[in-house]
């Protein structure tokens, strides 16, 4: 007790001394002008890290700011320049030279494992490599394990495909970009989450609500942007190997090399496989498909004072094999002896980004993004074949500058998107070519970082569906130091791909039918409101985030699995007639329990409804399938400096979701009763990981689904898979039980 008192006394005394010494920090900010001249920078935002105590430089580039008790890191932020952080001790009268950014887009300071970007007008959560290391495995789909906004689950019990849930809706309504280029879309949306290995990822930004108009019109509920490891990264070599007790093995190797002052090249590679047949629930079906994936990127980067360019190639091969444990494709494919599932995917992508920089006007930039990809996928589900091919061209020309001063910025440009689809399901061939030229303008007004307005508008002309406008608006207001309010609204549009997006339902005896008119594009309006509050309580720093988002569909592709008759069970696709909406509410609390212990607690509520029953002349507002209404997430992490020891535990509780059962649907049809409303169980998922760093390498050991919860009977009619009521698409919980893994990471820095 006495020592505690002493500590408090000493702390108070030192705090007093600090205050007495408080004084102010002064300095001047410059930019380099030619080789040895420099000129002052006016209007640079300067603030203490993790506080909003700030100022801006005057007309001579000078600043004067009171010292802060909470932070000794001074952040300098100026559009077009690299954000700079200086550690301030006792010195004063700084002379700081800021360096031009050399690329379009914002640079954000990243410290803790995940954080909310307080200056971004769009509510954005940043997942850093530190948070990614909390779950050792394996690819993008596992990267959201400790994120409360994004959840990922298996779409069915056979294929291993994973689906995002975000603001109550599926991953297809989120624009998933890799370095600001829309990537996981179209046919790639089925398995796309497993196409980005975790070791390639540098950081992930999760933006909620209507996104920016710069990257297109397809973001409806939000945008996820993945930044990959860059060729000029400090890590020259990064090697990771992973193995789990089910027999999955994985190797990743990243190599980066600076060739000269201006040129750098990088290789990101990945190979993984599972060849062990696992059937823990004894239903005669593999719990996980056997698979092999090879995946790689080679990228070249050029950076000079005047321009920046990068180009490269991505290639992917994946082979999946699932179904009954006895199934051998060479012997049994096309026979009724065993039910089998197979998928082979090849994907190749060429990409390039070029930016012209203006040394004397760093806020100005001109960038060109060009991408071409070819995606080929061949599948079979028992006797049913489904093949798809997608060719895509994407180009985006962006110009950014200011109006008078940096308080008024704008981005404008033109882009073009070409999608060429060719799909065959059973005997029917479906082709679709979409050609969409468009133009956009986005204006940003920023007042002392206290108030920001982003107003964007784009106009596109779709060759099949005509012209349309996409307006979006974001407001950010920081009335007090610790409070940030955000408001957003905007329109989104996309063309659905029924087979790729509802792939899991194809592993069934259902008869696929498109009902009524041809499928129209999906159109949404999304509105959101959020509050970010930081406060001190019990001597600790807390972050509270509250948000509410609503998505209203003007048109939607309705997927109806509710119906079965004595002749068949159905998978209906039709255009929405009536209402469809999603309400999402989330509350999240983060704190540092001690210097080394980080805690997160979050609750989220989804309320998602749509009008269904059209093929039967009904119009019933029903809950969207497979969306758990409630979810709770708890995460506690303990870290020693330089990650000598790292312990992490995540507990998720998932509430009930609406499901269907073809047998019960059939009974209801026979009894002439309304379709039964069924719910899944709620369940808990526990993951934990420990890792220990040594000088040259790091080892980790972890477990997923430690409570060993398994969905009972994930496959309906598993014993008779050629039955028309067979259904493996009703998966709401884990199919595999507890899983233990271990691995090594080796990093060689310069």
């Amino acid at each position, binding site marked *: 007790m006495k020592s505690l008192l002493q500590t408090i006394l000493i702390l108070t005394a030192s705090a007093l001394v600090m205050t007495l010494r408080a004084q102010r920090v002064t300095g001047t900010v410059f930019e380099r002008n030619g080789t040895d001249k420099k000129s002052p920078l006016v209007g640079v935002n300067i603030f203490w890290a993790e506080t909003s105590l700030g100022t801006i430089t005057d007309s001579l580039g000078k600043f004067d700011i009171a010292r802060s008790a909470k932070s000794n890191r001074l952040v300098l932020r100026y559009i077009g320049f690299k954000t700079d952080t200086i550690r301030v001790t006792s010195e004063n009268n700084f002379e700081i030279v800021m360096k031009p950014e050399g690329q379009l887009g914002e640079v954000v300071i990243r410290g803790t494992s995940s954080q909310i970007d307080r200056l971004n007008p769009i509510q954005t959560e940043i997942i850093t490599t530190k948070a990614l290391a909390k779950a050792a495995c394996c690819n993008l789909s596992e990267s959201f394990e400790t994120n409360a906004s994004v959840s990922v689950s298996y779409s069915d019990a056979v294929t291993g495909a994973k689906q995002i849930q975000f603001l109550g809706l599926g991953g297809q309504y989120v624009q998933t970009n890799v370095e600001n280029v829309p990537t996981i879309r179209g046919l790639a949306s089925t398995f796309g989450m497993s196409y980005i290995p975790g070791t390639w990822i540098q950081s992930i930004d999760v933006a909620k609500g209507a996104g920016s108009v710069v990257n297109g019109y397809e973001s409806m509920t939000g945008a996820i942007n993945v930044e990959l490891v860059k060729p000029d990264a400090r890590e020259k070599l990064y090697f990771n190997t992973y193995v789990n007790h089910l027999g999955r093995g994985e190797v990743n190797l990243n190599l980066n090399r600076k060739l000269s002052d201006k040129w750098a090249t990088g290789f990101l590679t990945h190979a993984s496989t599972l060849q062990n047949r696992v059937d823990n629930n004894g239903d005669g079906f593999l719990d996980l498909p056997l698979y092999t994936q090879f995946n790689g990127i080679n990228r070249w980067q050029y950076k000079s004072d005047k321009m920046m360019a990068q180009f490269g190639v991505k290639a992917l091969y994946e082979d999946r094999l699932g179904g009954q444990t006895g199934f051998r494709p060479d012997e049994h494919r096309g026979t009724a002896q065993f039910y089998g599932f197979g998928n082979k995917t090849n994907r190749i992508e060429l990409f390039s980004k070029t930016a012209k920089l203006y040394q004397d006007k760093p806020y100005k930039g001109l960038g060109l993004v060009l991408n071409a990809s070819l995606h080929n996928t061949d599948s079979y589900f028992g006797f049913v074949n489904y093949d798809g091919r997608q060719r895509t061209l994407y180009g985006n020309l962006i110009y950014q500058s200011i109006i008078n001063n940096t308080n008024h910025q704008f981005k404008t440009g033109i882009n073009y998107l070409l999608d060429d689809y060719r799909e065959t399901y059973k005997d029917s061939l479906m082709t679709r070519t979409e050609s969409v030229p468009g133009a956009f303008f986005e204006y940003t007004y920023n007042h002392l970082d206290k108030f920001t307005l982003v107003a964007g508008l784009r106009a596109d002309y779709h060759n099949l569906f005509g012209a349309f406008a996409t307006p979006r608006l974001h407001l950010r207001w920081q009335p007090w130091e610790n409070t940030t309010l955000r408001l957003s609204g905007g329109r989104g549009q996309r063309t659905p791909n029924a087979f790729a997006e509802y792939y899991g339902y194809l592993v069934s005896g259902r008869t696929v039918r498109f009902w009524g008119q041809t499928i129209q594009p999906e159109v949404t309006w999304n509105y959101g409101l959020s509050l970010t509050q930081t406060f001190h309580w019990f001597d600790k720093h807390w972050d509270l985030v509250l948000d509410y988002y609503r998505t209203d569909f003007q048109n939607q592709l309705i997927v109806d699995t509710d119906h079965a008759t004595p002749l068949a069970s159905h998978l209906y696709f039709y255009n929405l007639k009536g209402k469809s909406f999603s309400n999402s509410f989330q509350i999240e609390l983060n704190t540092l329990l001690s210097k080394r212990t980080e805690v997160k607690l979050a609750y989220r509520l989804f309320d998602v409804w749509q009008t269904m029953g059209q093929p039967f002349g009904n119009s019933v507002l029903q809950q969207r399938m497979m969306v758990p209404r409630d979810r709770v997430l708890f995460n506690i992490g303990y870290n020693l400096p330089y990650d000598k020891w790292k312990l992490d*535990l995540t507990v998720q509780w998932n509430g009930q979701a609406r499901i269907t059962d073809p047998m019960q649907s059939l009974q209801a049809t026979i009894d002439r009763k309304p379709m039964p409303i069924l719910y899944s169980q709620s369940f808990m998922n526990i993951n934990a990981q420990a890792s220990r760093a040594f000088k040259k390498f790091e080892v980790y050991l972890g477990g997923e689904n430690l409570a060993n919860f398994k969905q009972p009977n994930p496959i309906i009619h598993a014993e008779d898979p050629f039955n028309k009521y067979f259904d493996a698409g009703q998966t709401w919980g884990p199919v595999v039980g507890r899983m233990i893994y271990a691995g090594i990471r080796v990093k060689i820095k310069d």
Partner: protein
Amino acid sequence: MKQLTFVVALVLTIVFGAVANKPGKDKEVKIKTSAVCDMCKERIEKNLTLSKGISEAVLNLEDKVVTVKYNPKKTDEAQIRKVITETGYDADNLVCSQTAHDKLPECCQKTSEAHSH
């Protein structure tokens, strides 16, 4: 219920694990180095922290002194200095390992002028 017990047990393990790890009878030593910039600071701190018996290392770039907390049962000052010299930096009167020093990026070598990085 079984799941809940499991969760509670795991949380307790982590919390107590963290408490148990608190340095009890740690000793402290201050060593002058030849660090130049933030990259040097990170390199020295990391290599020290990840060495046996050391719980914390903080380098002050102003006076280039690194303050190391360590468990005297597991390591000693000579060992700690050796870690620094093998990283490529001088430790008090001990001169750095030449091979390690030459492997450092140019900006971190002793001839380099002070700069921010």
